[in-house]
C-alpha cells in the first residue's frame, strides 16, 4: 500500500494546502455548545466549501459530479482531513455514502438523475429507515408493511434510530411487502419522501443531551411505485450495498482521528494533579496512557491491513468487523481516561463540540456517546458472531425447534 500512497504525495500536499486556506480556524469555538440549527447551518457551509474544493464526494464517479478519485487518493484525503481536525460532515453521512452506494448499484437511471445531483447541492439530506423497535441487530425481523395498491405502496409501521431524520428530505426505507415469504425474502426497498402525508418524526433525546436520532411513524404513507429500488422482495440484497458503504474509509478516518486525539489526553494529563505534580507523572496514569496509545497504534495497523487487502481487491474477510469492535471498544477506554483526567469537573456534562470527532476532548460527552458506538452499525455481539462463523469457522448456534 505504501507505494500506492507515495505516488500521491503531490495530491497530499495539495489537500494540505487547501485545508490550510479553507478550514475555518475558529470552527471549534463556533461549534462548541452550538444549537442543532447552528450546527446544521455550519454543516451546510462546510459541505459547500468542500464541494468547491472538489473533496466532498471523492468516491463518487465523475459522471455524477464526484471526484472519481482512486482508492489511494481517497486514503490520502481522509488521512489529511483527520490530521487537520476538520469537522466531520455528519449531517451528510447517509447522503454521501448510503444513498449513492444504493442508487448507483440498484437504482434506476431516473432515480439517479433525480437524486444524485440534488445531494451535491447540499440541500438534499437523506436518512435511513432500517431499524425498528423490534428489529435492530435482527434487522430481517422488521415489521413495517408496504402494501401495493395500484401505482403506490401504502406504508404502515415505525422506524427508529434514523440519524438526522429531522432535517432530512428523503429516507432509505426497508419495508415488508410479503409477510408469507421467508423473512429475508419478503422485504423491499424504497425511497421515502419525508414530506409525504402520514409521516411523523420525533427526535429521541440521548444521554448526551443531543437528539440527532429520530423515530419515524408511518401511517398510511403513500410511496409511488417508481420509488422502489430494485425488484419487489429484493430489499435485503439492496440493503447489503447500503451497509457495505459504511465500511472501509470511514474506518481509516476513525482510526486516524483517534490517533491524533491522543494529544488531547496528553494535554489533560499534563495538568496539575490535586496531589501535586502532574497527572502524567503518576505511574498509573502513564500506564493507562500507554495502553491507549498502543490501542490506537493497533487499530492503525489493523486498518492498514484491511485497506491493503481492499486495494488488492481482497476485501471479503471479516476485517471490517474486527475493526468495528476494536474502534468502538477502544473509544470507550479512550474517553473514559479523559473523564478520569477531568476529575470532578469532568463529571459534569460539558458543552458539546458539534461536528467534532468522537474524541473531541469534551470527555463526558465523548464518553457518553462512545456507549452508542458498540451498538450502532451492527452491535459488537453481532460482529463477533460474524467473525466466529466467517473467519474462525465455528458452528452457528443452533436454532430452537419451533414451539420452544
Amino acid at each position, binding site marked *: *500500500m*505504501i*507505494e500506492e500512497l507515495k505516488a500521491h504525495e503531490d495530491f497530499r500536499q495539495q489537500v494540505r494546502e487547501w485545508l490550510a486556506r479553507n478550514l475555518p480556524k475558529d470552527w471549534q469555538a463556533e461549534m462548541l455548545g452550538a444549537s442543532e440549527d447552528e450546527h446544521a447551518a455550519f454543516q451546510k457551509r462546510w459541505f459547500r466549501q468542500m464541494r468547491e474544493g472538489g473533496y466532498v464526494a471523492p468516491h463518487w464517479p465523475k459522471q455524477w459530479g464526484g471526484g472519481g478519485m482512486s482508492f489511494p487518493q481517497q486514503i490520502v484525503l481522509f488521512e489529511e482531513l483527520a490530521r487537520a481536525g476538520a469537522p466531520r460532515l455528519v449531517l451528510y453521512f447517509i447522503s454521501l455514502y448510503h444513498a449513492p452506494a444504493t442508487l448507483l448499484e440498484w437504482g434506476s437511471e431516473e432515480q439517479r438523475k433525480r437524486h444524485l445531483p440534488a445531494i451535491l447541492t447540499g440541500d438534499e439530506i437523506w436518512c435511513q429507515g432500517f431499524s425498528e423497535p423490534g428489529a435492530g441487530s435482527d434487522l430481517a425481523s422488521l415489521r413495517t408493511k408496504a402494501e401495493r395498491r395500484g401505482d403506490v405502496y401504502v406504508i404502515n409501521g415505525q422506524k427508529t434510530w434514523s440519524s438526522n431524520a429531522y432535517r432530512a428530505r428523503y429516507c432509505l426505507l426497508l419495508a415488508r411487502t410479503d409477510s408469507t415469504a421467508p423473512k429475508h425474502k419478503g422485504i423491499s426497498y424504497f425511497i421515502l419522501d419525508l414530506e409525504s402525508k402520514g409521516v411523523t418524526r420525533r427526535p429521541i433525546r440521548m444521554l448526551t443531551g443531543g437528539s440527532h436520532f429520530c423515530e419515524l411513524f408511518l401511517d398510511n404513507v403513500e410511496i409511488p411505485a417508481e420509488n422502489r429500488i430494485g425488484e419487489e422482495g429484493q430489499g435485503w440484497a439492496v440493503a447489503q450495498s447500503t451497509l457495505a458503504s459504511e465500511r472501509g474509509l470511514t474506518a481509516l478516518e476513525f482510526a486516524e482521528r483517534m490517533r491524533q486525539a491522543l494529544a488531547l489526553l*496528553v494535554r489533560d494529563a499534563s495538568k496539575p494533579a490535586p496531589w501535586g*505534580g*502532574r497527572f*502524567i*507523572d503518576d*505511574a498509573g496514569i*502513564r*500506564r493507562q*496512557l*500507554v*495502553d491507549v*496509545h*498502543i490501542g490506537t*497504534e*493497533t487499530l492503525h*495497523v*489493523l486498518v*492498514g*491491513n484491511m485497506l*491493503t*487487502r481492499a486495494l*488488492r481487491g481482497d476485501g471479503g474477510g471479516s476485517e471490517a468487523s*474486527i475493526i468495528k*469492535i*476494536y474502534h468502538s471498544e477502544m473509544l470507550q477506554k479512550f474517553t473514559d481516561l479523559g473523564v478520569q483526567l477531568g476529575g470532578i469537573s469532568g463529571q459534569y456534562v460539558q458543552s458539546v463540540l458539534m461536528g467534532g470527532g468522537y474524541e473531541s476532548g469534551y470527555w463526558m460527552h465523548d464518553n457518553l456517546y462512545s456507549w452508542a458506538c458498540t451498538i450502532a452499525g451492527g452491535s459488537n*455481539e453481532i460482529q*463477533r*458472531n460474524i*467473525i*466466529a462463523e466467517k*473467519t*474462525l*469457522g*465455528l*458452528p*452457528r*448456534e*443452533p436454532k430452537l425447534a419451533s414451539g420452544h
Partner: protein
Amino acid sequence: MDFKLTEEQSALVEAVQAILGDHSELTVSNRHGFCHFDHKLQHLLLENGFLDAGRDLGALEAALVTIEASRIPATVEVGASAIVAARLLPDERVEGPIALIGEGGLDKPVRNLPVARTAFVESGDDVLVLKIEAKDVEITPSIYAYPFGRFRTEPDLTRCQRIVGAAVQLRQWWRVALAAECSGTAQSAIAFTIDHVNNRQVLGRAVGSYQSVQHRLVQCHMIAQGIHFLTLRAAWSGDPAHADEAACYAQQHVQKFMVDLHQFNGAMGVTNEHLLHFWTYRLRALQSEAGGAHGAARSIARARWARSSMPKVAGGRA
C-alpha cells in the same frame, strides 16, 4: 508499511512452511514432556539458510520466519539468531542457538541456555558476546515449553567480544523477536483450540457453537491479529517505539490467552496429555522477557513523554 507480502516474502514463508511441515507433529515419546527442543529441525533451518534471513533479506523476513517456526509444538531457536544477531552483528556469523540475557540475569535461569552456543549479555550500555560450552550450563527444571538453564559458575566475561553501545539495540530487537514468537505461538494455540471446540460435544452440541465460547475466542483472535501486524511493522520499520509497542501489546495479553484457551480445552487442557501447553507455556515464558509488558510500557512512556519526573525503578533498564 505494505501489509501484503511480496512474491519473494511469500516464497520464503512457503519454503519454511515446507520444512516445518515435516516437524509439525510430536512423536508419542515427546508428547508427554513439558518441552521438546527439535535439534534436527534447528539444524535444517540453519543449513537451509533460514536463520540468515535477517542478514540476507531483512528484519521483516526474519520475523516472518520466526513467526512460522513458532507455530509448531516443538521448540527451535530462531528469533535470537535470525532477528537479534543479524541486527547486532550484521557482518558476522554467530554460532547458534543463541540465548539472550538481560542486565543482571547471569545468575538466573535463561531461556534456551541449555542448547545455546552463544549468549548476548546486556552489560550497561554494551552487549557482550559470550561463547558457551555445554559443560558450563545446568538444566533448570521447568514446566515452560522452552529449555531453561543457568550457569554452573559465573561466566568469565573478560574475554567476551564487546559490542559498544548496543544495549538499546539488543532490547529493541529482542522485543521484536519475542513479539514474533508470541504471534506464531498464539495463532497456533487459538487454531488448536478452535479445532477442539469444533469437535468436542457438550449437551449434544459442539462446544464451539455456544456464543459464550465464540465471543471469547473472537477476542483472542483479534488480539493475535493485533500482535501479528504490530510485530511486522516493528520488524519492517526498525523503529524502537514500534518494537516496544509490539512487545508490550503481546506480553500484556498473554494472560488472556492462558485463561480462555485453557478454559475451552476443558480439564484435559490442564494436563500434559493435551498439546495445548506446548504453545501456551511458551507464551507464559515470553511474558516477562526483555523487561516484560511493564518494561516496554515504561520505555514507551519515557520516549513519548520524556519530561516526566517518573521515579526510576531499581534493577531494570526499561
